């Protein structure tokens, strides 16, 4: 992309542009265009990184670093992939580097709640509060969301990445292959394994919900 390709436009007009068009304005030197991209993507990217890193401070730091790199290297962006795919590729690589560094540091403590390693294939299930502690009470929607979040966190890291990209962030298989740098077949296999893990992890919650059908809250019943 050349710096002279796009002319300056009002912020209001920028809002209506697609991400990829905004990137052309970023390369043209319009900082406002980048601000719009940040506002569009920061929450979803942060959520994704929270699911991978399980630490708000790290997730925020990597989110910012990903945006900084996207801005600094804006000229390297080619409009053959969606901006979001490019941004998530940067972020995913940063996460991998961070986890690699943490693993090699002497004080490394497993990220998997102290049980196993992030790559461990060990299957865990969710510990529900004892039924006696919750007599005749249905699971609140917010409680359920916490359990689902914990369930995702317990999927082994090597499957979690692809699983979250597909089932939470709704990227296509091809986009996930581009983001993770994996072959399409590997992506499919990892997503499937992630799904199986998730289903097994969530089994106690499913059973509980099955026993008390009204627990999923408004609109969440399948």
């Amino acid at each position, binding site marked *: 992309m050349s710096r002279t390709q796009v002319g300056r436009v009002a912020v209001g007009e920028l809002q209506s542009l697609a991400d990829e068009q905004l990137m052309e304005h970023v390369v043209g030197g319009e900082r406002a265009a980048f601000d719009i991209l940040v506002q569009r993507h920061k929450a979803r990217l942060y959520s994704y990184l929270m699911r991978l890193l399980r630490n708000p401070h790290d997730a925020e730091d990597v*989110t910012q670093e990903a945006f900084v790199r996207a801005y600094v290297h804006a000229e390297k962006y080619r409009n053959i992939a969606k901006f979001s795919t490019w941004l998530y590729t940067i972020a995913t690589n940063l996460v991998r580097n961070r986890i690699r560094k943490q693993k090699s540091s002497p004080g490394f403590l497993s990220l998997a709640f102290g049980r196993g390693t992030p790559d461990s294939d060990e299957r865990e299930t969710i510990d529900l509060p004892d039924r006696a502690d919750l007599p005749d009470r249905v699971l609140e929607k917010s409680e359920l969301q916490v359990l689902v979040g914990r369930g995702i966190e317990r999927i082994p890291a090597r499957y979690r990445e692809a699983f979250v990209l597909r089932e939470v962030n709704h990227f296509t298989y091809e986009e996930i292959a581009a983001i993770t740098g994996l072959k399409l077949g590997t992506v499919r296999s990892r997503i499937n394994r992630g799904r199986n893990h998730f289903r097994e992890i969530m089994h106690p919650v499913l059973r509980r919900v099955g026993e008390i059908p009204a627990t999923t809250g408004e609109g969440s019943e399948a």
Partner: protein
Amino acid sequence: MNCRSVREQLWADRGEAAQDLLAAHLGACSSCTEAAAEVKRLRSWLHELPVEEPSAQFDWRLRLRLARASKSEPATRSRWASRAPMQFAASMAAAAVVVLAVGLIWTRDRGPESAGGSGPLSVTTPGTLHAPVTAPSVVQVRGRSGLPDIDEALRSEGRTARNDSDSTIVVPRR
């Protein structure tokens, strides 16, 4: 379609033909019907997960980082390319400090005020890694006649002028 292939397809995005085959199987298999209901429920929970927002300080912190990054790394230059000149300048500064120190010692030792005395010869260098290429503010020379080998002395001390800020390097007498 058997139970195993049905279970594998429960999560998948299916075409209409596969959907029909699946429905036919589910109509006749209660165990797969239960599994399909579980998958559907899990999917709905995943879809309903809230998007988490970063902290309130996120925006200004990012602004700060972007400002720093664009100052030090213009978009057209790579990180390495932008750092290389700084490293070069730092090396040159350190080299200049050493050369200047040697020159001053040599000049004083040859001058009328040079005194052959006892005790160690010490050189105080204000050099730091990022010091600008200027003469050091303080250079003290005490000691003896002859040309000291500063580099050798530094090596024998296991120190370098680049790493020590305001350090006094003691050069043993010859």
